[in-house]
């Protein structure tokens, strides 16, 4: 089923959007197993120079969404439906070769674990120059100074020497910088960062986030920031999509969303986080249960068994993602009216 209302509403923005994900659905079909829908009708837009957040807990479909956009899911055992419009081309209908060409040139990606995304037996410098050769048609000779400049730009000290280093010789933070340098070497229009700082210490995370922020500002690259950390989202993203069980359940601009979250899951997440600046001794308000309690989205709200706001209809009909009239999109039969009253 398509989310008709949203489709109509966003037609107007669609021309401005650089990347339009429409009704993306990813189903894993392992031999002999029940098909599993990991991403279930996800739609969102990304405009130039904008940072869009996808946030949610582990298993909600963030990585699968990004891999689907990048064309990195295996063809076998996986069904990808919907549309990923990039400047008039549906990326889901491109061949593997066409996608390989686009990755690096139009679309860049950074992963949580930089070590596994870098080739361990090739020096960093060669890896960056290869990207430049392949996607920008540079000669090795022309690419080398550009590679050095990229390493310098992402804050790697002594870049001339580091070009000769192998990935394992760099710390986690420096490796992530090297990966960002590679992803940005071709000036992609869209950069997808999937938990880029999750494996890093918090002081290093702060460095990397500051770097990403500067790069987006300087280059106008659109950033899709995938994270489980609402704190990271609060500081970085213009717009936020909250995912639960493979579906977007709430979407809003950064400030209003955090000031008045309306989806019970978003409210629950915020109540679960101990804040560094919170009042000590105040009790957290966890979300009861776990995702294993979820109902199927077909005929219910998946979150209903854990939801303090659940009413009868929640177990009988699937809520659709709708605009609440004020630019907030909600998938909920009984959203939180005044969030201050509900954060018990």
């Amino acid at each position, binding site marked *: 089923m398509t989310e008709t209302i949203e489709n109509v509403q966003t037609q107007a923005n669609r021309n401005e959007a650089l990347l339009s994900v429409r009704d993306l659905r990813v189903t894993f079909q392992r031999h002999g197993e029940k098909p599993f829908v990991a991403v279930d009708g996800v739609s969102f837009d990304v405009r130039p120079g904008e940072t869009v957040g996808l946030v949610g*807990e*582990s298993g909600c479909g963030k990585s699968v969404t990004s891999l689907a956009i990048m064309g990195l899911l295996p063809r076998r055992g996986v069904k990808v439906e919907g549309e990923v419009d990039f400047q008039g081309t549906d990326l889901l209908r491109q061949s593997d070769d066409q996608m390989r060409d686009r990755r690096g040139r139009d679309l860049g990606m950074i992963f949580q674990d930089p*070590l596994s995304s870098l080739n361990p037996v090739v020096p960093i410098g060669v890896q960056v120059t290869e990207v430049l050769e392949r996607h920008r048609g540079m000669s090795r000779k022309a690419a080398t100074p550009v590679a050095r400049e990229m390493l310098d730009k992402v804050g790697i000290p002594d870049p001339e020497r580091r070009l000769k280093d192998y990935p394992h010789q760099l710390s986690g933070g420096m490796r992530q910088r090297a990966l960002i340098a590679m992803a940005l070497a071709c000036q992609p229009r869209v950069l997808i960062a999937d938990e880029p700082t999750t494996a890093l210490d*918090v002081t290093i995370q702060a*460095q990397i986030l500051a770097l990403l922020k500067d790069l987006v500002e300087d280059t106008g690259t659109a950033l899709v920031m995938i994270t489980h950390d609402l704190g990271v989202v*609060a*500081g970085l993203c213009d717009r936020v999509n909250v995912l639960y069980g493979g579906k977007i359940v709430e979407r809003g601009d950064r400030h209003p969303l955090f000031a008045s979250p309306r989806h019970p899951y978003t409210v629950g997440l915020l*109540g679960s*986080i101990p804040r560094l600046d919170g009042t000590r001794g105040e009790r957290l308000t966890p979300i009861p249960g776990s995702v*294993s309690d979820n109902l199927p989205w077909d005929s219910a709200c998946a979150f209903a068994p854990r939801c303090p706001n659940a009413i009868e209809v929640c177990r009988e009909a699937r809520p659709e993602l709708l605009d609440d009239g004020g630019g907030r999109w909600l998938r909920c039969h009984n959203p939180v009216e005044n969030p201050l009253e509900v954060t018990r």
Partner: protein
Amino acid sequence: MTVSETATTEPSTTGDDVLVDVRGVKVHFPIKKGVIFDKVVGYVYAVDGVDLQIRRGETYGLVGESGCGKSTLGRAILNLETPTEGSVVFDGEDIASLSGERLRRKRKDIQMVFQDPMGSLDPRQSVESLLIEGMKAHGLAKDERSAAKRLRELLSAVGLPAAALKKYPHEFSGGQRQRIGIARALSVDPKLIVADEPVSALDVSVQAQVINLLEDLQEEFGLTYLVVAHDLAVVRHISDRIGVMYLGALVEEAEADDLYAQPLHPYTRALMSAVPVPDPLVEDRRERILLKGDLPSPANPPKGCRFHTRCPWRQETRCDTERPQLRVVEVAGAPESHRVACHWAEQIESGEIQAHEVTATLTEQTASGGEDDFVGPASVTEAL
């Protein structure tokens, strides 16, 4: 090679209220090379001179970045790691001096809760057998009826249904497994629970459940906690007092509220400024102290102040040569319980010394000093 710098031991009265007294503890791991003869070529100075006291009934939080020695210190307190130097006195007895039956009994008093409940629970044992093991060993399950009663009480204390007894660890979610791990720690009626990253493997919604549970149990059973974690927001939430570690040593120690209100060590300032807060209004206004360069290797820690390679307030004198000790500082509003290991804490707080640019230095990654514990999904070199 040995360390010439010795940690001074702060004179402090070991009153009755102190449950754990850690004095000058060092844990150095030898780095060995060679095929036939293991030759010691150096040491990882994982813990390098720590003094701290944990009082009865309190929660002491130990915070710091990966590799700073938090877990090793926790293990030393549990007597799972023999200190290279120094002593750990638990409940009035030096645990290194204990052996046989007395050590066994003391072990019961200190229990551990781990980050990864799956890794610490034997997958072939049912929950019942996991829980009853320790009770039997320590004579807490005298007959079947009292054992069954105690099991029921334990499960209800950690919020698991009685039906859980017959199940195996893999049949539970991560949060429920952590509850089992906590129940097992509680089963022998301990005095101290050392919880090493107890919630960092859990999703935030489940994290909050476990944090609340730990708080409730402390109240119910009068437990003392040592919570070791890298997440300062979590540590601040649950701890009464906090020790901040950097490269094997405490750099600051204070009541949780004092630490947050007035962080005085440059590293604590940077750490605190880096923790994201889920509030855009706060995030937009924040001034971050961005540290440059890598964390030095604990196998080759910087001389003098260990933080000097990254410290924005580093001075020409003392910082590079003289190792600062934890001391009470003369700063308005800082109580005696607030101790800082920085030569210039007062001048930095008053603004007399200002932050300056730092030249980033890299740390050559080796097998022993590096961060090689990445966990991550994708591996897609081809993506680029």
